[in-house]
């Protein structure tokens, strides 16, 4: 394959494979997620980041590399990225990476990112399984580049010297200018992601996914003590569902009487 590096921006996109939530079930006894047999799909939030990468490629050319850290079945998410038009896919997979928290995940991704030239890193806003929204920012820190989240519009300067973005806020939007390279966490307001085509899937099937193991990353200078569970500073003592809300109280009847009861209750609880 002829390298297109240097022609347009080199964009690195980090994606995650997540269980298909529409097929998730809870164990009725332990209340834990039953993951067995649940198909994995490309994290829906990552589709917006992928769409952003594809649109930038359409305008500026360049090269879009997709990387994921995960079990072997993450191939499917990468294959889908290739089907949609990514140029290359890389899977970081090893038992040593298992049970990584966001810090260890971001570290592992950063080791790979440092081995390739990039002008921009894209991620989704968060993953639908963990919902932490941390990996993007942490990856930017490991790479020592600025980042922005909730990105809804990206204007890349043709000279690759900077980028103007819009950030979605609750009641409006920010306009930021960032130098390159930078990391952008793309929001769903960016626009509707495209669907893969039959020809796209067939092309994707023929592309090889590059596999890197813990050993490979160590050879690239990674510290294996930072991988996976043992590299994760996060400790989860317990997972519990949110407590059920206590039922509310309704006073009906005479309004004056009801108000008096309400005031009594509020003062009893120390609110007034």
């Amino acid at each position: 394959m002829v390298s297109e590096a240097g022609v347009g921006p080199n964009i690195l996109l980090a994606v995650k494979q997540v269980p298909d939530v529409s097929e998730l079930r809870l164990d009725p006894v332990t209340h834990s997620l039953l993951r067995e047999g649940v198909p994995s799909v490309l994290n829906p939030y990552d589709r917006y980041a992928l769409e952003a990468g594809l649109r930038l490629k359409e305008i500026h050319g360049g090269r879009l590399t997709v990387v994921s850290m995960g079990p072997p079945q993450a191939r499917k998410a990468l294959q889908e990225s290739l089907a949609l038009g990514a140029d290359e896919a890389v899977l970081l997979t090893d038992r040593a990476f298992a049970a990584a928290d966001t810090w260890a995940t971001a570290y592992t991704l950063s080791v790979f990112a440092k081995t390739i030239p990039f002008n921009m890193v894209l991620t989704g806003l968060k993953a639908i399984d963990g919902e932490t929204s941390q990996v993007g920012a942490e990856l930017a820190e490991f790479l020592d580049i600025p980042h922005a989240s909730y990105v809804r519009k990206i204007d890349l300067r043709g000279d690759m010297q900077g980028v103007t973005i819009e950030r979605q806020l609750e009641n409006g939007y920010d306009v930021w200018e960032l130098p390159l390279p930078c990391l952008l966490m793309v929001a769903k307001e960016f626009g509707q992601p495209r669907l893969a085509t039959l020809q796209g899937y067939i092309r994707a099937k023929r592309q090889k996914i590059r596999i890197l193991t813990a050993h490979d990353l160590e050879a690239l200078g990674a510290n294996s003590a930072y991988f996976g569970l043992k590299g994760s500073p996060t400790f989860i003592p317990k997972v519990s569902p949110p407590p059920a809300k206590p039922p509310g109280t309704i006073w009906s009847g005479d309004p004056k009487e009801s108000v008096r009861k309400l005031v009594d209750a509020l003062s009893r609880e120390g609110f007034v």
Partner: protein
Amino acid sequence: MSTEKFDAIVVGAGPAGTSAALTMAKGGLSVALIERGESPGAKNVFGGVVYKWPLEEMIPKFWEKAPIERKIIDHRMVILGKDSGFSVSYKDDYLGMETRGGFTALRSRFDPWFAQQAEEAGATLVTSMPVSEVIEEGGRVVGIRAGRGKENELYAQAIVAADGVMSTVLQKAGIRGPPAAEDVAIGLKEVIELPSDTIESRFNLKRGYGARLDYLGSVARGKSGGGFVYTNSNTLSVGIAVLLSHLLELRCKPYEILDEFKSHPVVAPLLEGGRVKEYQAHLIPEGGLQSIPPLASRGVLAVGDAAMLCLYPEGTNMAMASGVMAGKTILESKKTGDFSIQRLMLYERLMKESYIFKEHSRKKNYHNVLTSGDRFNTDYPDAITEIMRNILVVDGVDRGTKHAAARKVIRDKVGYVRVLRDLYRDIWSALPW
């Protein structure tokens, strides 16, 4: 982007389609295997038995690696009365060796494994892609469409329609219409979870071995229908099938028939304590020989359920065998470079000489048996119950008198002539063996 042309496109990655794709890929053809489900096995339903033949032809010693639930050594046929059951069973470890008596499987495991064999042989499997249209040129089908635009088109020298009983490909190509209500049964199936040692003690089985129980008679309120209980590793596949036209006459919900079957006194104890894990429903081709569409027409080869190749109680073997023959036909075309409609007719010739057509011809009265009369669903089961109850209750009446009463029951309920005619002809269409 250049649109490349495959040697063959196979629509549907079930047993039939995958067999065709595997056969062709092994022969060095470029094959696209297109599946609408997220993975093979996600959208289709079967009772649960796969057979050694013709799987072994494609994957020698498959039993050492395929996701087999249990190897079937115990075959039981049960004629249900309203509250009773008359069983004939044959149990033989010989049938368990190399899965000679078939094996139980679950679609969600077997189909992906099978399709993977085709992929490893070189076929290109694409999932989550429903084929919606065919592309026609010069009076034949030259490609398929799975969405809008050129990027969703695909062309090939030959098309294999393995997209099931409702086959979009055959319907869009005008080769057949939707199946008639009397040519299909609605099949309902539950996968019921039970610990494997419970299954083994309840069905009197050794670890790894299984039983298949096929139920006839009073399954569907006197209409044409059958039931089954198949043992998997730690689940049972339990289901019924009722002729769609009969279900319409019954004016009931299909799951009511399934619930009645599950609570039948002969069936219920087998399922006791089990938890329903999955619920599935699908149409099953039951039209027999006369419902088989043109097998090779306009560049399309019809295989499996798309070609209505089901014959109670077998289906997966016919699906696979037809897939293999379609694959071989296209391989022949590739050799000579002749993909003409005429040349593809070889498939139909191969099929007509095969087990599939011999079986269909032998059971050519099958459809008649299903649609006409209710002696197999009501008269015979009632007669059997009455005779057996009378004979097996010891009440001081001598057997000679009881046998005479039994003859009277047969005469009154069905008539000797009818019995002789059925024995000579129709019964062999109605029985699973």
